């Protein structure tokens, strides 16, 4: 290294030093410590005691863990596709030449700003089984169906019904789709107008233009949003926690991995077990992200830019 390089290395490290400290103390150390704690019996009050793979053995036999894992997967598998479709749909609508697009954009975007605490309390109220707004709205179409088909469908008691609670959470999440929608909208506006015009000259109708121009060129943005959605939904905690008044729902139907980590650590003070759960969550996110990246690599079109 010559003198210039040395100076630059020194300056560079000096500038990034805040992050280096943060990385060491708040990322690298916690990951390693998690690994260590997960091999220990550790209750915070006393020092960790090494117990080998005991926590992991317990974990494999722990039905609650498997339930949390199943709920976490299910939520991600349902909410990511639904919110992707809704976000793209709204973005495409907003990209139409109608008046007041700025107003519609604000309306769709605002809910995504709502803090988790307000969001959860508000939806707890909206999803109320007897006097909630959601049921008030859906009882109209249900009545019509019942009248025509002779069925006796009733609106669900969302948060008190083990099989419906998670769908209530999905609805709550869909209301906050505005953030992703803005990113899709920006992506749509990056697509060169000539491409649409070329497709039109080639004889493509609106639907074909959407399938053959819009979607392929939007794939990098979809890719980004899906990864962000994955990382976000796998760590979901605050909203279900508050929706259930600090618990995990009927039949633990709103128990997620992050919830279970929190419970193990701060309700049962079983830090070792919680650390093992945290590592599982980490590996899960890492693994699934890699799968998505692998899958996406071949299907993402980085064109036009």
């Amino acid at each position, binding site marked *: 290294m*010559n*003198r*210039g*390089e040395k100076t630059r290395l020194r300056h560079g490290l000096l500038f990034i030093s805040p992050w280096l400290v943060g990385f060491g103390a708040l990322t690298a150390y916690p990951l390693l410590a998690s690994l260590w704690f997960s091999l220990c019996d550790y209750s915070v009050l006393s020092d960790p005691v090494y117990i080998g793979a005991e926590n992991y053995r317990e974990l494999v036999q722990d039905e609650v863990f498997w339930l949390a894992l199943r709920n976490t997967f299910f939520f991600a598998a349902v909410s990511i596709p639904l919110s992707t479709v809704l976000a793209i749909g709204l973005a495409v609508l907003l990209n139409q030449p109608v008046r007041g697009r700025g107003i519609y954009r604000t309306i769709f975007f605002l809910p995504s700003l709502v803090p988790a605490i307000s969001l959860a309390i508000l939806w707890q109220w909206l999803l109320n089984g007897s006097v909630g707004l959601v049921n008030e709205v859906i009882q109209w179409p249900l009545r019509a169906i019942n009248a025509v088909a002779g069925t006796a469908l009733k609106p669900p008691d969302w948060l008190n019904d083990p099989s419906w609670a998670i769908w209530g959470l999905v609805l709550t999440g869909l209301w906050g789709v505005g953030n992703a929608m803005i990113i899709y909208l920006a992506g749509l506006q990056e697509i060169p107008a000539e491409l649409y015009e070329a497709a039109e000259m080639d004889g493509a109708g609106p639907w074909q233009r959407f399938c053959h121009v819009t979607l392929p060129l939007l794939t990098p943005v979809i890719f980004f949003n899906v990864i962000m959605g994955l990382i976000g939904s796998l760590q979901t905690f605050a909203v279900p926690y508050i929706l259930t008044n600090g618990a995990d729902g009927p039949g633990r139907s709103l128990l997620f991995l992050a919830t279970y980590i929190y419970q193990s650590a701060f309700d049962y003070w079983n830090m070792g077990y919680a650390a093992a759960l945290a590592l599982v969550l980490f590996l899960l996110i890492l693994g699934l992200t890699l799968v998505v990246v692998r899958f996406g690599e071949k299907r993402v079109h980085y064109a036009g830019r």
Partner: protein
Amino acid sequence: MAEITVENLRKVYPGSKGQPGKVAVEGASFTIRDKEFMVLVGPSGCGKTTTLRMIAGLEDITSGTIRIDGRVVNDIPPKDRDLAMVFQNYALYPHMSVYRNMAYALELRRVPKRVIRDRVGKAAKLLGLLEPDDLLERKPKALSGGQRQRVALGRAIVREPKAFLFDEPLSNLDAKMRVETRAELSRLHRTLEATMVYVTHDQIEAMTLADRIVVMNEGRIQQIAPPLEVYHRPANLFVASFIGSPRINTVSGRIERDGDGMAFVEKSERSEHRLRLVFTGDEARMLASRDGQEVVLGLRPEHLSDARDLSAPDPRATFEARIDVVEPVGPETWIYARTAGHQLIARVPHAEPRADIGHTLRFTAELSRARFFDPATGLAIC
């Protein structure tokens, strides 16, 4: 003011894993004399900008030495070299007024406010930044390209540096502004009596501005000489073809004895319209040592004439060629014609379009202007 010496300068950009680095400059040595206007010229990627940036201190030197007034500056940061630079995109600070853009370097050097005001005022006046409109309080965004260019110049001038460095400063201006600013730079050089180092890929800029030109290609210096010498006595084939527009004609062929003279005979499979020029006197003596050898002939387009325009065309310098394309460009006409194996361009005075495409025309070469190059090395044969 200052003399800048560059010795054996070398710059290698490190390659990424497993790949060799890229050599940007190799063994460059030259001296820029005090008050000299030196232009570094060459095609893009030839290393001229890298050389300038190494002089400025913006780029590390892999090996070699740079001296300013005898002092080695290799490890001295840019700010302590006392050089001012004008950038291709002007690099004006968008958030500062024109005045502050010019004053900033002086403020950093703790020059007294009064002196700053004085110097900025002078430079602004010299560059016409006060008349017709006072631009000093404007932000760069509110200026035209030409005005920005002048502010960038002003920023350098107020520094009263040891030398000015220019990195393609005219390339972002439109054609008209470029010509005007070129003349202004020339005037400025005379007024300031400063050492200037100027990088460009534009040969007209090089020819018109320079006291001396450094021609570079692929990291190496090809020739260092005053403009007209570079034009008329290019050191090698690269310089010959890089300088001059339209490009110099080059014809490969061989030398053979022809009576008391020496003949250049074009190399070609076909014999029709084979170019043959016979040299006598000094040129013949020089070519005698090359008898039987292959050479490349270089002949500038303005040194070819339509034989009909001459009262007594020299038969030894006259040949026939078939016309491909005729381009009347205004004051003159460019005729593209084909000999047995080469295409030649002739610049002839504009007249009635008497040259018909496909027809054969007789051309006469100005033999004393012909240059010869070694086909293997490309070097000029003296």
